[in-house]
């Protein structure tokens, strides 16, 4: 374990990010699944900054010699997975929004139609006396 200013900075940033994630989950701004993905990502970065030798062991296990290249490959893989996840979610959301807008338009139209029908029935019905002032429909003749 080697503590440098960079390690402290990364750990501080990770802690702030984790607190921010927790607050967003509590405020229901961020879903639990997304929060979990980001939490794992930040914890991994913090662990690697505190134990840099761990990265070397992983690099050797993966059969790579260049540390920078290894990090780059990992970063590209993680980002690709995140972007793929996001695009499929956006696609699904946009389809859901389309369906909802279409259903809402039809429902609003039906409600307006029913309201118009009701108004017509009320307008055509014979006027009723207010309660306590006699009973039955008023004779308009």
């Amino acid at each position, binding site marked *: 374990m080697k503590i440098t200013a960079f390690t402290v900075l990364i750990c501080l940033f990770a802690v702030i990010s984790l607190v921010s994630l927790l607050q967003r989950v509590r405020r229901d701004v961020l879903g639990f699944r997304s929060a979990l993905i980001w939490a794992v990502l930040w914890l991994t970065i913090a662990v690697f900054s505190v134990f840099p030798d761990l990265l070397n062991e992983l690099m050797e296990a993966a059969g790579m010699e260049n540390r920078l290249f290894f990090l780059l490959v990992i970063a590209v893989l993680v980002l690709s997975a995140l972007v793929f996840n996001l695009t499929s979610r956006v696609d699904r959301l946009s*389809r859901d929004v*389309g*369906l909802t*807008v*279409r259903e*809402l*338009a*039809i429902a*609003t*139209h*039906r409600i307006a139609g029913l309201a118009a029908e009701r108004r017509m029935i009320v307008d055509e019905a014979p006027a009723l006396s207010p309660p306590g002032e006699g009973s039955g429909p008023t004779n308009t003749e």
Partner: protein
Amino acid sequence: MSILVTLAAHNEERNVGKVVGRLRELGYRCMVVDDGSTDGTVQVAAAAGADVISHATNLGQGDALLTGLKASLLDPACEIIVEMDADGEHDPADVPRFIEKMRESGADIVIGSRILGSHQPTASRLRRFFLPYYTGLINRLTGYQMTDALCGFRAFRRDSIARVAPLLNIMIEPQYVAAEMFIRFSRAGLCVTEIPIHLADRGWGASQKGVFRYGVGILRAITRTLLDPRLGK
């Protein structure tokens, strides 16, 4: 026979009134699906005598057509649903020919053909060039014998559409609904026939469909539909 004509309109205040007025003169009931217009399309269409359904936001012509179809299914009196453009390119006087063809042939869907009639005067050469290839591809996938699968002037038998109504909710690419609709409807056993139509110049404005984007979109819609596990055999 009760006929309901549905028109999808987006910012068509200059054209929709004339089209609806002409349809009303011919004695047809009209439903305009306003696709999130920001001009006076809703007011003009309502003033001309159309029943108006409004999308809260702009989704695209295909979505508006699906809304029109679904809303028409809720009208128990309606027997035939006719879809046409609100921009004035389709002639309302052709509607009786669609009805006649449907009655004669017993088909579930009658589609207008610009190839058998006249080409779209406002469409680019590129679009006219690709139209037969797209139609050929859709014919191969559906077994239909159409000459213009992408024409927006169509008539549907209400009972037949009611039978396949759940399919209207699973359209993956509503923006390019024609291709997907025919693939799904062919698997559901619906019959299609066509009649020639002649297009007029649109009254005002220009088509909002980009050739490249539209072409790629149709191919994407076909691919995604074929990959959809919900697509029947």
